[in-house]
């Protein structure tokens, strides 16, 4: 074996490959889960023809999308039109790269030094996630603009205005957790949540910051343009949204980006508030199973909310974000600061 | 090997490009963008010298410069909107007379 084929480097590359594929597969899984859960909430069965209980339905959908014609209107800007879905997808996938999903492992002694189960281990991980999700706004803005249609433009502007408004509360909720943990690294925040109170209640930040958790989830739902904050998307049932002019795989890329964003928000929520991969009973090298369970719980909550709650009208949505959520987030931050100083 | 001079040269070149943009472009928004380029060049100088001196003050100053740049961009764009509403054009040559 040549000297540069280092087992550690190979392990890292395999890890990156696995994470990328898991994200894309989880998006496909979310399509299936959404349709099944929606069906059962509406007292019907949902897809059950393709594969066992319709599990292959998302793949059938993707195949159908791939065979559609790739339309492009005589748009204002061909380059921006092509690059908008790419920007959305890249931002969505890149944001997951700093999220840790398990403890260190040496793959049962194959590696000389332990491999951390995350793509990149930076000590400003929380800020990196915030930065990359704020880059995701550009995909939507450019999609709305380059479609060269008034309705697309308005839909794109509304959607991006909503996203940047809710980013403030998102950031303040993050700041409260960072104050509690004293570190910006997601791995350290999770490790700070290990242990139990009274041997029964896990030391999750959910119990120390209930309001913060609610604020974070609400802001996360609004960031990913999901119900009940999906007026700019649902607008297309009435008029048109930012991705009306897109067809075939570009359209598919926008939905991939949306589902991967949901997975990222859920993953960050479990790391910050639900104790990440920490859990009883399982050995260390299976800790990522707990992580997956917690992420799936939050994703189920996402889907459940979509098919239960009516959606906010756009002005109600903006009013809620600025007049209610932002003061609540500031209050949470001040209360957390007081708590940290008082308890030392 | 990269020395402090390399970073200062790069910063100087970026600043000159920003200045050229302010002189040469006849579009209000592009002039504001060139001002942002100049502010960025200054930020790079601060961080590079902070790294050389081994203090954290360089990054602290860039934090404040970024905040000031945000405030100035907001007010500048508000002015551009108000001007556009009056003359329907973004060229600074339309605003040469003192008559409103």
């Amino acid at each position, binding site marked *: 074996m040549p000297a540069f084929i280092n087992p550690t480097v190979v392990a890292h590359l395999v890890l990156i490959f696995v994470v990328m594929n898991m994200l894309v597969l989880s998006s496909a899984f979310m399509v299936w889960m959404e349709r099944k859960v929606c069906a059962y909430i509406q007292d019907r069965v949902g897809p059950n023809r393709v594969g066992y209980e319709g599990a292959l339905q998302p793949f059938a959908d993707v195949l159908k999308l791939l065979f559609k014609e790739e339309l492009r209107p005589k748009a204002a800007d061909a380059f*921006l039109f092509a690059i908008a879905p790419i920007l959305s997808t890249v931002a969505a996938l890149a944001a997951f790269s700093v999220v840790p999903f398990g403890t260190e492992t040496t793959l049962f002694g194959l590696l000389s030094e332990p491999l951390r189960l995350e793509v990149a281990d930076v000590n*400003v991980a929380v*800020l*990196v996630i915030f*930065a990359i999700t*704020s*880059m995701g*706004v*550009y995909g939507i*803005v450019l999609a709305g603009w380059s479609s060269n249609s008034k309705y697309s433009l308005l839909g794109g*502007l509304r959607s*991006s205005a909503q996203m*940047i408004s809710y980013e403030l509360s998102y950031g303040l909720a993050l700041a409260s957790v960072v104050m509690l943990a004293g570190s910006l690294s997601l791995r350290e925040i999770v490790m700070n949540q290990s242990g139990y109170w009274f041997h029964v209640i896990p030391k999750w930040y959910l119990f120390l910051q209930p309001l913060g958790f609610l604020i974070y989830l609400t802001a996360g739902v609004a960031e990913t343009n999901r119900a009940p904050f999906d007026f700019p998307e649902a607008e297309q049932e009435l008029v048109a949204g930012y991705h009306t002019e897109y067809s075939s795989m570009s359209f598919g890329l926008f939905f991939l980006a949306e589902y991967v964003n949901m997975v990222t928000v859920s993953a960050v929520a479990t790391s910050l508030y639900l104790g990440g991969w920490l859990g009883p009973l399982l050995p260390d090298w299976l800790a990522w199973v707990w992580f997956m369970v917690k992420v799936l719980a939050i994703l189920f909550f996402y889907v459940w909310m979509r098919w239960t709650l009516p959606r906010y009208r756009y002005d109600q949505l903006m009013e809620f974000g600025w007049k209610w959520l932002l003061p609540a987030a500031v209050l949470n931050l001040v209360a957390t600061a007081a708590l940290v100083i008082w308890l030392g | *090997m*990269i*020395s*402090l001079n390399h*970073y*200062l*040269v*790069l910063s*100087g*070149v970026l*600043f*000159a*490009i920003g*200045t*050229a943009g302010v*002189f*040469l*472009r006849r579009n209000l*928004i592009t002039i504001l*963008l060139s001002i*942002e*380029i100049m502010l*960025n060049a200054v*930020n*790079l100088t601060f*961080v590079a010298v*902070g*790294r050389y001196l*081994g*203090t954290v*003050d*360089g990054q*602290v100053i*860039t*934090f404040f410069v*970024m*905040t*000031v740049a945000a*405030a100035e961009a*907001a*007010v500048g764009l*508000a002015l*551009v*909107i*108000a001007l*556009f509403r009056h003359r329907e054009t*973004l060229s600074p040559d339309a605003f040469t007379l003192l008559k409103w």
Partner: protein
Amino acid sequence: MDLNSIGFFVFGAVAVLASLGVIGQRNPMHSVMLLIVSFGALAGLYILLDAPFSAVTQIIIYAGAIMVLFLFVVMLLNAHTEADSVPAILGPRGMQIGALLSILLAGEIVWGLSRLGLTWFGNDPATIANISSVSRIGLAIFTTHAFAFEVTSILILVSMVGAVVIARRGH
């Protein structure tokens, strides 16, 4: 040619080329997108300078907020290509002098810096850990530079109110 040097030249080249594109493009939309690329390259340079906090703040504030503001204004004002573009050498007198002055400025800075001896960065790991630690930056902002921090927050408030008042319709 270690990673540091390659990184500096790559990011530096991207920053300079993107900035040239910003002042050269006719369409303001393309100028804004090229400026975002330039900001990304600068963030890469900050990481090479052991300043991860500055790099991330650059992306969050500049590329994530200020440029979105610029994009909104460009789209709402429908700022299509004006009949200006960067004039070539055959431009009117004022443009020629402006371009000449900018080139002179760049030349002067480069000449002055090349006359000095090369100043190398220190590589002491303790100092590097000191610089790149976010808690140190927070400590400096809230203790040594607390006055500047408070004044900056008032500045932001003033600019917010001012922007809303200026851009309002009618009086």
